[in-house]
């Protein structure tokens, strides 16, 4: 009897073990068979100077499951269009219970942002391509599973208040929201009409700002604002990103005037933060002088821009803006078409006559240095340009 039960138990264990084993095998097989889905990031993504894992927690993010994690916003700046290309106004808070709609003056705000925080000050995390809808990331519902990001209401208010808290005027809800009782079609239309064609006044900058500093070997720093913007092509945001709106607005407020010398006593990096991003290799005396510095003159570099080059933007020749890279000053280093037979001399305002047409460039322009004076004396005695001309002058 005892033996029988023992055999039965052994058989039972063996059978159940077999069944369990059988069940496990197909599972592992299925796991091996599943194909890895590889999704190529779109063009916009490829331009991002950031690793995939910085924003996505999984290996293969898809549109359905982007597995996004919180990522640093400043590394994703990708808005590349002008404020004027955006809408003039945007209507917000369509389903408000306590407060009505907001007719938001988008264009005016965008123009202000253009000279300070930039579009991405509000449209943060905007990956390359069209502007993302706020509600793609910020959910309408306050009660939600994913609490890593604020909900839509909160994110709007946080954006507005990041500047409007500094505002000494009314900050009541009704400053932006229409009261529910007055939320009629006419009132909304009225607010919209007020914004049509309205722009932020153009920012008038000082062409030159002279800073007085405590630096002994050069008290004065001349900052040629115009040059940095018009010549060097810096955007406003490059330097003014951290400016508060109250730098321009509300400057007449009576309480808590911002201190004039905000930078006093601050560490070197803070005081010079706007300059050292580009001028990191320059000595102090590049900017600190005892007299007011003149405008930048290209002549001092050994290459006179003259009438031919003065209207060119810097980056036409200097491809890397940050570096005053020494270019070869000879004409042919850039003008590869200044070659006999290829060059149409009419461009200079002088059509060569048939005799001179056949000559090499070097015959009149020694070493093909076209900046130097034309030489006639190699062939002609007592001839000199422009008294005598090798052809006919024409207006260009």
């Amino acid at each position: 009897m005892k033996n029988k039960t023992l055999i039965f138990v052994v058989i039972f264990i063996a059978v159940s073990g077999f069944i369990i084993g059988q069940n496990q095998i197909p599972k592992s097989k299925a796991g091996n068979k599943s194909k890895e889905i590889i999704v190529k990031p779109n063009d916009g993504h490829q331009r991002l100077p950031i690793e995939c894992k910085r924003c996505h927690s999984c290996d293969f993010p898809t549109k359905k499951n982007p597995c996004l994690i919180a990522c640093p916003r400043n590394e994703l700046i990708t808005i590349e269009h002008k404020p004027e290309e955006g809408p003039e106004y945007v209507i917000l808070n369509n389903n408000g219970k306590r407060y009505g709609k907001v007719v938001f003056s988008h264009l005016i705000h965008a123009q202000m942002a253009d000279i300070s925080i930039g579009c991405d000050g509000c449209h943060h995390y905007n990956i390359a391509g069209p502007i993302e809808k706020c509600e793609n990331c910020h959910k309408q519902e306050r009660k939600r599973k994913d609490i890593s990001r604020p909900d839509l209401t909160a994110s709007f208010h946080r954006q507005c208040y990041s500047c409007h808290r500094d505002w000494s005027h009314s900050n009541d809800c009704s400053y932006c929201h229409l009261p529910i009782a007055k939320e009629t079609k006419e009132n909304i239309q009225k607010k919209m009409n007020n914004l049509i064609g309205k722009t932020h006044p153009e920012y008038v900058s000082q062409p030159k700002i002279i800073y007085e500093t405590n630096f002994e070997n050069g008290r004065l720093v001349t900052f040629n604002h115009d040059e940095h913007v018009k010549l060097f092509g810096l955007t406003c945001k490059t330097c003014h990103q951290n400016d508060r709106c109250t730098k321009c607005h509300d400057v007449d407020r009576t309480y808590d005037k911002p201190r004039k010398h905000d930078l006093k006593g601050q560490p070197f990096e803070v005081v010079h933060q706007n300059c050292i991003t580009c001028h990191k290799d320059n000595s102090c005396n590049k900017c600190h002088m005892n007299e007011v510095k003149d405008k930048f003159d290209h002549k001092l570099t050994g290459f006179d821009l003259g009438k031919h080059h003065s209207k060119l933007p810097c980056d036409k020749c200097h491809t890397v803006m940050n570096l005053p890279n020494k270019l070869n000053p000879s004409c042919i280093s850039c003008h590869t078409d200044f070659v006999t037979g290829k060059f149409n001399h009419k461009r200079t305002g002088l059509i060569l006559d048939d005799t001179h047409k056949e000559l090499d460039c070097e015959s009149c322009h020694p070493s093909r240095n076209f900046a130097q004076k034309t030489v006639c004396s190699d062939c002609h005695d007592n001839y000199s340009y422009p008294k005598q001309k090798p052809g006919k002058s024409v207006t260009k």
Partner: protein
Amino acid sequence: MNKINRRNFFKKAAAIASVAAVSTQNADSASTNILSDERMGVLVDTTVCIGCRHCEWACKEAHNIPAGQLDDYHDRSVFKKFRRPDETALTVVNEFENQKNKLSPIFVKAQCNHCDHPACVSACIVGAFSKFENGSVVWDGSKCIGCRYCMVACPFQVPTFEYNKAIEPRIMKCDFCIERTKQGMLPACVEICPMEVMTYGPRNEIIQLAKERISLYPNRYENYIYGEKEVGGTSWVYIGNKKMWEFGMPKLKLSPAPGVSESIQHGIFAYFVPPIALYSLLGGIMWLTKKRSDLEEE
């Protein structure tokens, strides 16, 4: 003979008392799993608050306290005085100076923090306070005898008493909107906040969120989560650009507030120890005196 008897009696009494004390030392104040992983919490991000005080209004509305008009709460003159939650306002917002930007002062909301090891629950001699599995610490009016021990015990000085009511005065404190959350709604203050200063979620996720925010924006936040460990941890936790005791919150020890006092108190009162001890003491004295008088009589 007498001596031995007396000594034996005290020995036994002491043994009973100590056994009772040890056996109840680790007992929780409530039988439910009050420290479950699902218990809820709130993260208060004080860097976001604008001091609109809508939370104060919503709280009163939710608790049938006269609230008045919402727009009246935009009055900023109340910030001149530091306020604590009281029987007419279970949550209050206070203003503090922001040295970095004087135009943007710091606002800090105060209410019951719903401790993981609540001192009020421990101090209440009739069990009118209980900590629930969803994290809330709630007062039950049907049990309260009005001793106000809870007010003294609370490390945050939150519970208040309706002194002005002659009949049926109540202990008033934030109840984590337990009636609302039972119905799947959010606490009233969390729901109304225009800035979502408060984020409602499971406590462990809340702590994780706080850590994430601090590591993402180290310049914006002081690396400290107030309430993560204070008095053994609270359901409501705070982050800000400074440590919270600079904003009117008490600086507290990390060990649970009830702690030692609770274990002694509960130890002594458990298993009818005090009446048994008292009656056996009296019985002992009676027995001894009777025996002595018997001997004298002999």
